[in-house]
């Protein structure tokens, strides 16, 4: 498998990362090297092997449906670029 420059642009779009033409060229070469390495997996017979999504086979815990975190609105909003009347202000991005 070899990625074309259009493939790289499509992947960058999927990842929501703007890329310049120079970056597309550099990324193409390095991603192709990486995927050549990844291709080594293909030759391995993994039929019947259970995928291992996590290092420990544990069930996610359940807890009481009760609020446990204290209200820390002020400290959380203290690091926001812009706040007014307890609300976050964000730039207009939709016309």
């Amino acid at each position: 498998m070899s990625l074309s420059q259009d493939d790289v642009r499509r992947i960058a779009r999927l990842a929501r990362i703007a890329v310049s033409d120079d970056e597309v060229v550099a990324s193409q070469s390095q991603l192709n090297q990486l995927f050549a390495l990844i291709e080594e997996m293909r030759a391995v017979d993994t039929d019947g092997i259970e995928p291992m999504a996590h290092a420990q086979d544990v069930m996610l815990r359940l807890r009481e449906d009760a609020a446990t975190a204290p209200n820390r609105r002020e400290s959380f909003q203290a690091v926001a670029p812009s706040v007014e009347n307890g609300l976050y202000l964000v730039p207009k991005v939709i016309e």
Partner: protein
Amino acid sequence: MVMQTLKQQIDALAAGQTTSVALVTECLAQIAAHNGQLNALVAVDAEKALAAAAAADAARAAGDTRAMLGVPLIHKDIFCHEGWKTSCGSKMLDNFIAPYSSQVAENCDAAGFVVVGRANMDEFAMGSSNENSFYGPVKNPWDKKAVPGGSSGGSAASVAAGFAAVATGTDTGGSIRQPAAFCGITGIKPTYGIVSRFGMVAYASSLDQGGPMAHTAEDCALMLNVMAGFDERDSTSLEHAKEDYTRDLNAPLSGLKIGLPREYFAEGLNAEIAGAINAAVEQYKALGATIVEISLPNTKLAIPSYYVIAPAEASSNLSRFDGVRYGHRTAKTGNLDDMYEQTRAEGFGTEVKRRIMTGAYVLSHGYYDAYYIKAQKIRRLIANDFQAAFAQCDVIMGPVTPTTAWNIGEKNADPIAVYLEDIYTLGVNLAGLPGMSVPVGFASNGHPIGLQIIGNYFAEAKMLGIAHQYQQVTDWHTKAPQL
């Protein structure tokens, strides 16, 4: 520089031979003299540290007997700590002051530690050299032309340079063990799930694990006692009974069975590293251990498996950095998609972008089974290899890295070559096992060499004891670099 261990500092404080203000003042002087060259720390708050030290001394005088009270500590810049900037080595978080603390930082605060600074790191913990930081590369204290290893390179360099006796690190594919090896210190990546990931900026959630970095195994055990523990706020935290990780430090090694995986000593291993590892193994034989040759047949597959799984998880975890909620936001205007794309193009470095793009691709429709599910199946084979090995031996030993620290910039044009350096460490993360690095010598270029010890699940105390016994009869861990 007179090297001090955590244990020496604890004992000196308890005996009234020193004060926290004196220890912190020494650390700050060492930092002021050398951090400009090493770039190991990205933030130091002398005023805050000295005030905390004075408070610790006052508390001790009033009868507070907490062991870590007033001991200087450095946190990797990945652990949120209320009031400290937590940048994770990224422009994306350059403006982020943590409004809450990670469980690890809370535990360290509760134990009485005084934080003197925040350690530089590869951006979002992605890297094996510490060259991928928005704040510039960290220099190896043993050779300032060389990398310190990554991603906890700032933590490792800080301990080696005497900025503090102990630092926190994280290890996703070797990021505690490899910089520990490159900087001549001791570090342990615990069993996945015993140190909380709450408040630790996520890279690859099923692999990331925090752990201690220090001069000695004894110090790592003392520090792990502080860091480890169940945390209900981390859904992957294991409900494992609280342990004392110092309990096996003096356990004899007679009868210990050490497995040497033949794949870890194959082509590609630097001859000087092989020599130092073999000498360490001989030392263990002299201490009463026996050697078993074992096989981890899927070792080579750890690299492709890791470089599918980690980027896949990274692409998901780092989707939160979109310019909307927090972190960097582009000044360029446009529609919503443009804003996302420009923000992320400006905020992330090259290595992070490469891994996010890789992750987006392997998770995309049509490739998910071929890459992501396949990698998870390989991960199972790798974990099975380790369990088959542990049927024959108590612990596994081998090199941490195939080479010693390389020069800064040397591998910039070839990121894949850097990925291949992780061949001996990645499998441990994929399987969720504990692994550690112990200093066992130096190459002819003066660069430190680390021995990797891999244990079965929850075998930290045993591993730390095995390392401690070696450090009782050798002095590699006592060597300090000329700064």
